[in-house]
């Protein structure tokens, strides 16, 4: 098994400093939609200028480089403990090189570890054994501001008049976007999971964030829901940074999970505009970043 520490380091650098093209394009489109000279447009101008500068200087787009969350899909035969070791070494090195901010705080003592290595859940690494020959590694850097505005609902919800159907899902997701206001660094991207238990539901809502902003959900019902939610969320006019404006969300990605008869959870993971996610593919001797 090869030592991929350097490849992981490059994946982290790229994710932290070079925003994905689909996210940048959607920010440009959002800029065009805002009124000329508005605070919303000015915020998006600053955002786009910062994106270019971070890429040019290889410095973090946002200082809150969040919890590094890795999803690793590996063919049979790979050692997950060795991969974990290499990822952790790369995370510590990336912190030293200021691609990442030291973010792992011991909740009992209050001490920051200084190198982003905490207990086995920090950084978070998910492994899945897959068919095929390639090793796929997805990384998302999700900051605390947007993580704090995530929400989970149990349907029915009387306060919002939300029943156990997609109409109910629509209502609670809009409530979550309203509650977030600009605090999650709008315009955000919503990962929405419907069903599951509390844990699997939140997990799936984060997985949904790996999808490209311009893709279509393969399930036609979920696709319709995504479009409706995007349209409605933007009608809230919270706008970039919560300054008011046309763009409150850049995208909505939904996923459904089987649920217990008694449970109907809706989980919303809010991702800030600095939607830092990248994929690395190890294909034979080749390493591809996208």
């Amino acid at each position, binding site marked *: 098994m090869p030592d991929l520490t350097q490849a992981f380091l490059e994946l982290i650098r790229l994710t932290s400093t070079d925003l994905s093209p689909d996210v940048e394009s959607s920010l440009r489109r959002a800029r065009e939609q805002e009124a000329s000279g508005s*605070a919303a447009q*000015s*915020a998006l101008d*600053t*955002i786009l*200028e*910062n994106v270019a*500068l*971070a890429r040019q*200087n290889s*410095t*973090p*787009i*946002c*200082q*809150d*480089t969040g919890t590094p969350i890795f999803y690793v899909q590996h063919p049979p035969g790979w050692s997950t403990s060795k991969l974990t070791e290499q990822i952790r070494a790369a995370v510590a090195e990336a912190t030293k090189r*200021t691609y*990442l*901010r*030291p*973010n792992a*705080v011991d909740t009992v003592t*209050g*001490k*920051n570890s*200084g190198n982003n290595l905490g207990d086995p859940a920090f950084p978070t690494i998910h492994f899945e054994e897959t068919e095929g020959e390639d090793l796929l590694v997805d990384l998302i850097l999700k900051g*605390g*501001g947007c993580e*704090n505005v995530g929400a989970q609902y149990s349907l029915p919800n009387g306060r*919002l*008049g939300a029943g156990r159907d997609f109409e109910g899902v629509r*209502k609670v997701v*809009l*409530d979550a976007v*309203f509650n977030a*206001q*600009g*605090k999650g*660094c709008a315009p955000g991207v919503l990962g929405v999971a419907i069903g599951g238990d509390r844990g699997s539901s939140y997990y799936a809502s984060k997985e949904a964030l790996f999808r490209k902003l311009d893709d279509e959900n393969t399930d036609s019902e979920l696709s319709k829901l995504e479009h409706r939610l995007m349209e*409605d969320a933007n*009608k*809230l*006019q*919270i*706008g970039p*940074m*919560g*300054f*008011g404006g046309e763009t409150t969300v850049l995208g909505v990605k939904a996923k459904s999970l089987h649920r217990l008869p008694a449970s109907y959870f809706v989980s919303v993971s809010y991702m*800030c*505009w*600095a939607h830092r996610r990248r994929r690395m593919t190890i294909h034979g001797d080749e390493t591809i970043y996208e």
Partner: protein
Amino acid sequence: MQKITLPITDDVIRELRVGDSVSLTGVMITGRDAVHKWMIDTFVQKSRKPEGDDEMVYEALVPILDGGAIYHCGPVVAGLDTGDYSFVAAGPTTSIREEPYQGDVMRHFNLKAVIGKGGMGPKTLEACNEVPGVYLHAIGGAASLIAQSVQQVRAVHKLDFGVPEAIWVIEVKDFPAVVTMDSHSSSVHVEVETHSKAQLDKLLAS
């Protein structure tokens, strides 16, 4: 764009209105969750006795905060091994977590400007009116860009809080922000929330 030099006078504060773009020049400090709790517990409510370098740090902060600014920011800092510090990425963090503390910190230190993102609540708005002071919104996530306005790191206190939570004394030039809460009880955040609530109610009824 209005250029403001720190420390700020009451007259300058009273002239600022929500929606004004400003650029700040002078010396300010970063301070967020741990710092606000430490200030309140140790020096405002005095529910905890000063220990270690607490009093020394407090004395160092008093002249900077009098008429000054605090920035809700947990930066990425280079030079941690040599002590030759520089800011690499330094956007604002979400301010609302300091809502229980901020107004009292403003009153205690005569703090004129609170810089962060996402806005703050009624307690801080009241303090803005009284002190007087303003809340300045920086662009969240614009960390590489904002770091360029940090000319120099003058000192760091409470590094044992961790890099993001420490008190960094920084000299800034043309630090960009927008007034979203002023000393006349106006708040962009209240306006946007009120409008979006009306929109939400319509969408829930449809």
